[in-house]
């Protein structure tokens, strides 16, 4: 199929095989992703993902902006979960500065990040169900997501690319009624999750489309670097929020949902349970938000001492890492973003081999990739 170690453009064409091209414009690739499928009849024998259609050179731009100026760019990578991106970046720069956000800021950051996790998973659920043919969950999920986005809008003025956090803490105080809004959403949300579970979990058609589809073993996950719900569904009970807590996660109790088979159905269950756990974290957090300042002691002009730092968080899609190299000036020398979707997408080939063409769409959906993050 492909010669080892060549640099030439590898082609997938064999003698009697069909190469089916999917994308880059396609309703189910969740962005501009091009997938070349090498088919033998209906079965997929190999794939090749072509990415880069959304490459905007974010890492290069970072070298020409100050640390604060770069923060809005970070939202545009995983645009479905912008708040998480912001959290990772702000915490990474704070590490670089040897500074820390005050406790109140940390708790509010946690609440917003968990709400964002729920929102991101709702988008995943709606679009994944739509790809498999269930038309209705999409609208229900977006109705819930609307409530979360309203909270974001009241908090920082933006719904999608929020730039909610600042380096050193927060700029905006939690608005009057923030706790009430979050509480009302969380109380209502349990019933909604139950609604989605009723629609899909026991549905034999859903199970038929997702059970044993896209199986990835735990060893493969770790070897391929897949993280997040994909890793947990394969049986590895690991969550960076518990392993190396950041923000205020060490103060709250929550479970890590784990799957057994590593198939699409397990990933679905893991993400549903993660939404539940996020809701619990939010409820715990709003009970006691500590008083105090929301901005730590960082100056107006940020000049971190020369050196480097790597900080990663558990974004909704996996491990989101920031590797920052500073040369002592106000602009970073190098910003590297380790995107979870990029590394997770590598596992696509392994997951899809041997399946039918109709499963390809389900597997892309279950990977939960956002091309803004894959390409940056």
């Amino acid at each position, binding site marked *: 199929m492909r010669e080892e170690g060549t640099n030439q453009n590898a082609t997938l064409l064999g003698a009697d095989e069909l190469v089916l091209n999917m994308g880059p414009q396609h309703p189910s690739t969740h962005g501009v992703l091009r997938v070349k499928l090498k088919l033998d009849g209906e079965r997929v024998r190999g794939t090749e993902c072509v990415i880069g259609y959304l490459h905007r050179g974010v890492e290069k731009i970072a070298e020409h902006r100050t640390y604060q100026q770069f923060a809005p760019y970070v939202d545009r990578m995983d645009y479905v979960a912008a708040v998480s991106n912001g959290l990772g970046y702000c915490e990474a720069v704070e590490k670089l500065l040897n500074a820390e956000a005050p406790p109140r800021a940390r708790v509010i950051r946690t609440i917003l990040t968990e709400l964002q996790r729920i929102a991101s998973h709702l988008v995943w659920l709606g679009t994944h169900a739509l790809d498999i043919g269930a038309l209705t969950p999409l609208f229900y999920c977006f109705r819930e997501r609307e409530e979360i986005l309203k909270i974001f809008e009241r908090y920082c003025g933006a719904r999608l690319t929020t730039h909610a956090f600042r380096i050193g803490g927060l700029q905006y105080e939690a608005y009057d009624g923030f706790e009430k809004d979050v509480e009302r959403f969380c109380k209502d949300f349990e019933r909604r999750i139950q609604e989605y579970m009723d629609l899909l979990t026991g549905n034999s058609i859903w199970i038929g*489309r997702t059970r044993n589809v896209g199986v990835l073993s735990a060893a493969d996950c770790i070897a391929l670097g897949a993280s997040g719900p994909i890793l947990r569904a394969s049986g590895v009970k690991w969550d960076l929020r518990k392993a190396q807590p950041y923000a205020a996660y060490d103060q709250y109790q929550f479970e890590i949902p784990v799957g057994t088979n590593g198939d699409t159905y397990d990933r679905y269950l893991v993400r549903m349970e993660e939404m539940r756990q996020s809701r619990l974290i939010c409820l715990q957090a709003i009970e006691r938000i500590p008083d105090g300042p929301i901005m730590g002691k960082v100056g107006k002009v940020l000049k971190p001492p020369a050196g480097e730092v790597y900080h990663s968080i558990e974004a909704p899609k996996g491990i989101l890492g920031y590797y920052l190299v500073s040369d002592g000036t106000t602009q970073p020398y190098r910003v590297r973003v380790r995107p979870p979707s990029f590394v997770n997408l590598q596992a696509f080939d392994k997951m899809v081999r041997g399946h039918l063409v109709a499963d390809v769409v389900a597997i892309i959906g279950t990977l939960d990739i956002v091309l803004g993050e894959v390409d940056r």
Partner: protein
Amino acid sequence: MNPTLEALLHFLATWWVELLWGVVIVAVVPLVAGYVVLVERKLMADMQARLGPMRVGPHGLLQPIADAVELLIKEDIIPDNADQLIFWLAPVISMVAALTSMGAIAFGPTLQVARDINIGILFVAGVSSLGLLGIVLGGWASNSHYSIIGAMRSTAQLVSYETAAGLAMVSALLLSGTLSIRAIVDAQRQSGVWFVFLAPMAFFIYLVASIAETNRAPFDLPEAESELVAGYMTEYSGFRWSLYFLGEYANMIVVASVATTLFLGGWLRPFPNVTWLSWLEYAPAVLMALAGGYSIYRAGKQPVAVQTGFMWAVALACFAVAVLFAVPRFVAPLNFVLPGLNGAFWFLLKVSAYLYVFMWLRFTLPRYRFDQLMHLGWYILIPLAIVNVVAVGVAMLLENAGWNRWVGLMVTTAFTLGTALYLVHLQDKRNARASSAKTDVLPGNSYAG
């Protein structure tokens, strides 16, 4: 007189009713199908917590007109290497098959559409399955690799489920003993209960099979947008596409009518022959009046004045129809329209309920993968349908031997249900075995790319 002219006039004199009905079908059914599409969109919106078409006309009532105009004025695109004649012919065949099969359907005891053929049900089923030809020709004529694959899939699906549907129909035909539509409904009237209660398994088999027959979800893989291999309709746009689309909805109406006739008592009211329930004869008028009343109740809750006015208009229309139903009952010279009117009301009500179930399933269930679809058809539905036919036959033999009709039928229904559960269990076992078996994949570096 010119003998040709004489023959022509004689032909017209004999067949003018049927010809008129033909014109009516071709004129009215596409419009009705268009409005069925609107109802579906509104229902889908309601189940999805939104409103649906609202802009074009009040509450979107002119949406089908707008869609029709849009499709008619669209550019007619024909692929370069497509076979021109077949490309033109395929949607026509689909539409013609659907419309012609409507010719034998009866809405009321004297209200059949064209003529009461003595092989009515067979005619309807047979002609509507000619629509298959339209699908496969359309896919082939498009001269596109993916269209032909989609067409083949569609055809395979339709043929498989046609078998199951036919066998389910046979069960009901055993109970009625005749193929003529009017006679089937009469048989239901004489037995005092709809056939769905006598042969429920047959009804459910027919329900599932008819969903697959019309390419509706959860069996709509060949048409789904998010699937890779596009369906047979891909290369069609504009008016040609609308022929396919309307043919599909006309087909839905046809299968709903067949199911209503065979299982749901056609134009009969619930419990048709039971005299102490004859007050149900007033039900059409009462129901329409209730609908009008509900409209008035909702009118008070509308946020905007325009919508309030609209609900009042709907209420008025409902009351008018209620009056229409009630008047012939009390005005003696008009009594003769009663059976037809009432019959049409019940028939349309049942067809609407059946279509509602179609739509409801579409919005709720995900899609079957094609191999799962075929498994369901061949491994579960067809064996079950065969078993069901045998069971109903046995029940009728038992009835002849003196058993109580109901006991015989309950016993055989229980047996069929047991078979169904067993078949599903076998399928689950087969699935478990298949998933644990490893399929052959390419060796080598599967982490690359």
